[in-house]
């Protein structure tokens, strides 16, 4: 009896794979199919606020796909410029993070092991404490009568406060600040594995230190650069909290647009279409990221 039953029960190994997989399929992948479906529906004043795609009546299956949301997005300047602006801001912030993060990761990787652990803890610590609180902290620093302006005016460098808060500059500062650890950690993981004798060999063959750095260290750290960049670029494209708290009305970012469509306009179908186009936009960077992740794991 038990033996018979056993035949129909999944093998232990399959079961172990299935538990997390089913969870993720159900609560992470299927939702995207639903987003796709709803992006083709019409907004309605109902609960939930959208039309159904198919109806079955009189032996007829009526499928009604509404392309209107996509046409609307692709013809309205607001959405197009929000997409472009998000990609631009994500790209620039990634570059800034790389420029600041690389020297830091390099310095940490070259410290002695004990110091290295403490330094790493210092990188990890802020990213484990509230993201929201850390962004909030910048409001007090950057606002017109904030600490930064008070400091500069106290020094006599300026006599009128600089308007930083509610501009794109504040958003850049916030993004770089919040996402810097995501650049430093993968870079560090890569750089700390470098064989120092490769650099010594380059010196020995006649390359000056900075040239050896360019010819050896930078190319070898490429997987770390890609991983860090993707870890920043992808979420920043859809970032909502930072532009909302630090940006102004000029800060047009797609995450913010989606939020407004959903919460303010209650237009779920358009919000879904916004999400689907954002996903298409991110497909390439996500693929690049996974490619390098699986390569690194080997």
């Amino acid at each position, binding site marked *: 009896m038990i033996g018979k039953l056993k035949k129909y029960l999944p093998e232990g190994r399959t079961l172990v794979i299935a538990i997390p997989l089913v969870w993720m399929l159900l609560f992470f992948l299927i939702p*995207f199919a639903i987003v796709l479906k709803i992006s083709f529906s019409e907004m309605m004043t109902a609960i939930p606020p959208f039309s159904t795609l198919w109806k079955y009546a009189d032996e007829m299956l009526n499928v009604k796909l509404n392309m209107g949301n996509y046409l609307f997005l692709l013809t309205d300047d607001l959405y197009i410029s929000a997409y472009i602006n998000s990609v631009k801001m994500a790209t620039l912030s990634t570059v800034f993070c790389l420029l600041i993060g690389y020297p830091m990761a390099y310095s940490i990787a*070259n410290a*002695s092991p004990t110091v290295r652990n403490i330094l790493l803890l210092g990188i990890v*610590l802020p990213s*484990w404490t*509230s993201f929201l609180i850390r962004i909030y902290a910048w409001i007090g620093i950057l606002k017109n009568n904030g600490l930064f302006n008070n400091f500069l005016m106290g020094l006599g460098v300026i006599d009128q406060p600089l308007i930083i808060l509610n501009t794109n500059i504040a958003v850049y500062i916030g993004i770089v600040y919040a996402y810097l650890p995501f650049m430093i950690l993968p870079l560090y993981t890569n750089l700390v594995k470098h064989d120092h004798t490769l650099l010594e060999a380059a010196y020995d063959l006649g390359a000056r230190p900075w040239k050896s750095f360019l010819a050896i260290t930078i190319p070898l750290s490429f997987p770390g650069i890609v991983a860090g960049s993707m870890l920043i670029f992808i979420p920043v494209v859809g970032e*909502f909290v930072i532009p909302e708290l630090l940006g102004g009305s000029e800060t047009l970012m797609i995450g913010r647009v989606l939020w407004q469509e959903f919460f303010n306009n209650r237009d779920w179908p358009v919000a879904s279409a916004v999400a689907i186009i954002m996903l298409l936009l991110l497909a390439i960077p996500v693929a690049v990221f996974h490619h390098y992740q699986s390569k690194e794991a080997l």
Partner: protein
Amino acid sequence: MKGRTSYKMIIVLALGYAFLFGPIVILIVYSFNASKLVTVWGGFSLKWYGELLKDKGILDAFWNSLRIAFCTAGFATALGTIAGYVMARFGRFRGHTTFASTITAPLVMPEVITGLASLLLFVSMERIIGWPQGRGMLTIWIAHVTFATAFVAIIVSSRLRDMDLSIEEAALDLGAPPLKVFFVITLPIIAPALISGWLLAFTLSLDDLVITSFVAGPGSTTLPMKVFSAARLGISPKINAIGTLIVLIASFFIVSFSIISFKMEKKRKREAQQAFENN
């Protein structure tokens, strides 16, 4: 291996850490400011902490957040450990890359998309099977477990990849069945990774705003939602006080965990060294 730190590196690090920690330090300092004006120092005071304790809305939200974070961390650690074990130890089974990408996908997904997708799922499920009824703590918990699992899986699988496979193979060879090997050999060895995975899941859940906002319902307002709606209106010393508490609690856990694991590692190394020398 000795360090190769130059003065240029020291300057880089000093500036970098000042940038990372400056705002947090300022936030903490001004939470003790007697003045209501957040940017003008009016003397030391604990009055904002007192105000916090009187604010029922914030306390309720904090209690909600804590409960969700505890439940999320426990479940995500279990699920993430299984997923991480599969990723690191099951080898190249059919679809192993699909498995790994599915598990880790939430790591690099903009939160607004995850939040929207989760909400639409819950709405559709309720319509089709009548569960979950409405939105609230349960839906927040499910959404949090989903993204926190990805982080735990990454931590556990990378720890497992560093671990010597032959230890587990030896246990199998000595006659322990796979499940027993996992519980008696593998789990104790990767325990530090589980603890850091748990801590990370806890803080991620405690901290999340965007996904939570999508899937929350009436009566399930969390602390970040409170903080966010207050921060939108400008700064107030009360938020500084909340922030200070969060930062201090999180730092306490992480620093003590790091010190303990560092000490344990050091002790293990020293004992190994002694054993080696005594031989």
